[in-house]
């Protein structure tokens, strides 16, 4: 087939494929029970400690070069694990929020206006955190792939740079997202609020 026809055909197939993915294979929304059941515990304080500039500076100053490299490798792996949990929980909250949005659109609730503002903010935060996780995930992947903890002294990357990526302060945004999730959960009852607080 000539290239002049092949290129638009490939573009067309790609277009139909992504349309099918977003319509026929659209993500399945779920309810608050899924969030409670499937969420992976991530305390924002732990993340804050890991991404604390002062803590990293103290480690650099107090440890020997070899010990710092070993510590930094562990810290990078820990950051990767926290990021996975964050992405997982953000995805869960996002799918639940989509369900809440659908219910709002079907006018199944009385406190719609307030819930709508919570849902809209949560959806926006989830999107920002997902973009953050893509960028931060790529950064951590490159550190692990190129064994960045073994690089010469000053070139060893600081885990603390992950705190703000593409204008998103991960700790603030995640804290706010979980806060919103708990506030939305409170509308399903006190038990849900407590269980969400425990699981997130």
């Amino acid at each position, binding site marked *: 087939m000539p290239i002049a026809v092949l290129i*638009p055909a490939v573009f067309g197939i790609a277009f139909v494929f992504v349309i099918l993915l977003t319509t026929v294979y659209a993500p399945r929304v779920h309810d608050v029970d899924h969030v409670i059941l499937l969420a992976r515990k991530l305390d924002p304080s732990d993340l804050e400690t890991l991404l604390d500039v002062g803590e990293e500076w103290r480690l650099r100053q107090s440890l020997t070069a070899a010990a710092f490299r070993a510590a930094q490798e562990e810290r990078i792996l820990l950051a990767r694990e926290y990021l996975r949990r964050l992405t997982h929980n953000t995805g869960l909250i996002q799918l639940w929020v989509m369900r809440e949005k659908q219910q709002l659109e079907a006018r199944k609730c009385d406190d719609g206006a307030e819930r709508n503002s919570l849902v809209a903010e949560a959806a926006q935060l989830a999107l920002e955190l997902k973009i953050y996780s893509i960028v931060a995930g790529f950064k951590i992947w490159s550190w692990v792939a190129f064994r960045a903890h073994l690089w010469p002294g000053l070139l060893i990357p600081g885990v603390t740079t992950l705190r703000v990526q593409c204008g998103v302060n991960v700790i603030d945004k995640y804290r706010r997202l979980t806060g919103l999730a708990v506030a939305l959960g409170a509308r399903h009852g006190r038990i849900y609020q407590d269980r969400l607080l425990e699981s997130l």
Partner: protein
Amino acid sequence: MNRLDLTIAVTGITLEVGILVLMAKRHLYRQFPVFASYIAYVILQVVLRSALLPYEHLYFLAYWITAPVEVILSILAVHESFRRVFGAFYLVRWFRFCFPGAIALAMLYSLLTGYFSPPAHAHGIYSAIISGMLMAQYVILTISIAFFGLAKLLQVPWRIHEYRIVAGFGLSSGVTALAAGVRSVFVTRFPFVSNMLPAVSYLLALGIWLSAAAYRLPPKVASDGQRPTQEDLEELVSRLRGDLAIVRGLLKRR
């Protein structure tokens, strides 16, 4: 112009007017000003070209002046929907420059290529416009693919208006690009694909946009973060009046 062309043209302009009317009724032009401008421009363009049809030279000029503006507006309209859904991406500093920069570079490259190496017996400017218009179809198609790909990747909640606007542009551009490819390779061998299919796909796109314009979000959702529309306010006032009448009735009974 044969009967089929006339039917397509009349159907097209009817659908375009319908979209514009519904957008005005639903106040969607506030949310999608570029898309509304695009539709209004296309209507004006059709009227102008139809009026100049008997004057060959004037029609020729009008066609070559109006066509590039339509292409630019269509790119901006797709970008508008993209930005409304993925506004968060513009927090990424490099994305703010790279995304429009890549579009501008692609367009510039095609314009220069068309201008400096036109086909035999063709004027450089017209060749540049055709080349740019063809590249614009690929740009729109790429933005549409990126839009739906990112929506899937980031599990963005379904947003009827933006999704349908982008889907319409993507469909129309994809078929137009394919028709251009078929015409450049097979010349007049498949007249339906190279001549009629782009028009049919554009009508389909208009249908998709009409369905988007006809869709009305529930007031609670529609009013979120935006100024309430006149209709919402009137509905609220009439409801309050009804409630007040009930309260007055109760007070009178007591």
